[in-house]
């Protein structure tokens, strides 16, 4: 993309027409002040401005530019016979012809030329070529030899011969610039001597070339935008395809992994539970540790599947109006037996709170995971309290325990993938945890446009996890309904995970 620099393309595209307008105004004004001799000339420059502002198709715009001065200005009768626009191709290091006027002389040239017009390319190291010189020196070049602008692409002798047939006497090469960058060159071939060009003509040519620069710059930007857009569309399609492939691969791989893992798990279970085969205490410990580890492996596969789905936006939310008090009652009942076994009280404080918009099953899992964590890190005699408070437009749900607490420096790591804290490893290992539970929990809450935070006064002082959900009828609730991932063929539900309370 030439002439783009560091400026984002969108900014350039917005600014380009404005700058173009200002510049053209300047050119027109200057032209008008210096050469107040023709209303038609003024209109022609205005036409060029229209080309600048309406440019969509690159080829169309450049063709229009080379024709305007001839057709609109009637400059044919002043001896302007061929106008050619060339464009710098930095990648190939050459000057390419992109447009030629629709004039009789130009037609003759096109028919006679031994190589097609579009293939006349001038390498930028051809110093004998006047177009190259005009670009290098950023200065107008004048010659009586047309060959000076066509070598080395066409043989000098052939051009000379053809020039005589057409009666071309003078050729002008202007560098075409915009935003202080040279974009190419425009070539005017005339059938009169340089000395016959009037002062007003020089002024008009200068103004015209300035306008061409802006038109060309604009056209280039539109073209590069189109190219970029196409490339982006292709890249996007490819990414989607890759994402699907990745998801399919993860699905198949996890199914394949489950087969041997199931065999290990099942045989270990039978080894431990075989009737009439008493195991020594050591043997029981070995087998039980192997069993816990394979459970963890299975959970890991499931959690990785979940994360893959969450990250590729394939988890849909089945939203409904949820009464959180009811949900918490269910959850406390569900974990009651396990908590009792460990001598921990689980209390759900029923509060007057509005309903929230949520995927009930997924918030159920969020609660199970948070309570499950609290159970892991709270000793017998402790308490887990589930509470709420309303702070428009959210209900904040808290799970507070009297457990081991979290050191302040560790709080930020809690919600990252495998962000498990070192001293928690044993507790987690024994429960078959994966280190992914809080990450998934946070992802579920975030999908609901809520936030989750953890608080602790420090080690030994218990922990509180608080997450928010949108109250029904609020703007954020509506936004959630509008934007939440919907169920499609592509979406899948969460796997049974370590989020599920073991």
């Amino acid at each position, binding site marked *: 993309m030439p002439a783009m620099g560091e400026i984002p393309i969108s900014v350039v595209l917005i600014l380009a027409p404005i700058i173009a307008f200002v510049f053209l105004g300047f050119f027109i004004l200057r032209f008008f002040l210096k050469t107040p001799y023709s209303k038609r000339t003024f209109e022609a420059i205005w036409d060029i401005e229209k080309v600048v502002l309406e440019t969509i198709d690159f080829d169309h715009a450049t063709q229009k530019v080379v024709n305007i001065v001839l057709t609109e200005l009637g400059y044919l009768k002043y001896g302007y016979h061929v106008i050619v626009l060339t464009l710098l191709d930095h990648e190939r290091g050459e000057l390419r012809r992109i447009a030629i006027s629709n004039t009789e002389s130009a037609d003759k040239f096109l028919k006679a030329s031994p190589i097609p017009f579009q293939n006349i390319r001038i390498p930028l190291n051809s110093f004998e070529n006047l177009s190259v010189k005009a670009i290098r020196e950023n200065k107008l070049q004048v010659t009586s030899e047309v060959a000076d602008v066509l070598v080395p692409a066409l043989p000098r002798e052939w051009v000379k011969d053809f020039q005589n047939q057409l009666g071309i006497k003078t050729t002008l090469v202007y560098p075409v610039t915009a935003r202080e960058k040279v974009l190419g060159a425009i070539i005017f071939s005339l059938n009169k001597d340089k000395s016959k060009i009037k002062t007003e003509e020089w002024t008009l040519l200068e103004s015209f070339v300035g306008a061409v620069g802006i038109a060309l710059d604009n056209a280039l930007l539109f073209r590069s935008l189109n190219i970029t857009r196409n490339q982006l569309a292709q890249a996007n399609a490819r990414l989607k395809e890759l994402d699907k492939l990745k998801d399919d691969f993860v699905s198949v791989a996890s199914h394949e992994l489950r087969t041997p893992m199931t065999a290990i798990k099942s045989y270990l279970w039978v080894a431990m539970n075989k009737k009439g085969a008493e195991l020594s205490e050591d043997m029981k410990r070995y087998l039980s540790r192997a069993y816990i580890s394979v459970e963890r492996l*299975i959970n890991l596969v499931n959690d990785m599947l979940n994360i893959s789905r969450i990250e590729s936006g394939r988890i849909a939310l089945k939203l409904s109006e949820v009464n959180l008090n009811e949900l918490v009652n269910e959850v406390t009942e569900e974990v009651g037996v396990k908590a009792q076994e460990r001598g921990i009280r689980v209390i759900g404080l029923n509060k007057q709170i509005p309903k929230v918009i949520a995927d009930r099953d997924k918030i159920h899992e969020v609660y199970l995971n948070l309570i499950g964590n609290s159970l892991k890190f709270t000793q017998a005699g402790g308490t887990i309290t589930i509470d709420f408070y309303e702070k428009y437009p959210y209900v904040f749900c808290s799970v507070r325990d009297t457990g081991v607490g979290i050191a302040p420096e560790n709080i930020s790591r809690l919600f990252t993938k495998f962000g498990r804290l070192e001293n928690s490893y044993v507790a987690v290992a024994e429960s078959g945890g994966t280190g992914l539970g809080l990450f998934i929990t946070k992802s579920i809450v975030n999908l609901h446009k809520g936030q989750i935070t953890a608080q602790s006064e420090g080690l030994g002082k218990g922990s509180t996890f608080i997450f928010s959900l949108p109250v029904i009828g609020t703007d954020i609730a509506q936004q959630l309904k509008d934007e939440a991932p919907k169920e499609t063929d592509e979406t899948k539900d969460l796997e049974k995970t370590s989020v599920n309370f073991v």
Partner: protein
Amino acid sequence: MEKKKILLVEDDQFARELYEEVLKDAGFEVNSAVDGLDGLAKIKIGGYDLILLDVMMPKMDGLDVLRSLINEPPAVKNGPIVLLTNLTNDPVIDTAYGLNAKGHLVKSDITPGELVDHVKKYTDESQLTESSPIADSSSS
């Protein structure tokens, strides 16, 4: 009391032999099939109280087994067909429910003990809903 008859359609040898063993230990009569075709042939004989059907299998997958049964129901009736698979959250599960599967058990999620519990539950239910469909065939 007559032993309940279970058909286990499972291609993985380790899983098949283990499930056979725990179900027999739990007092069931167990026949097994090693792939979909074998499974279909045995289902067509009929007379099972419960069929545990894997999905991903060589020769014929579980879904095709279910389809064939809809097209050509066995002359002698069977109890419910329950998927026993490691596929989770897969569209084929929903498809299977549409093809008369009565349930879905995920092998990696359950212990052999839990499998026995599920099997007991399904066979008890089927006895309540169907009037001794296997009396004739089991005596044959």
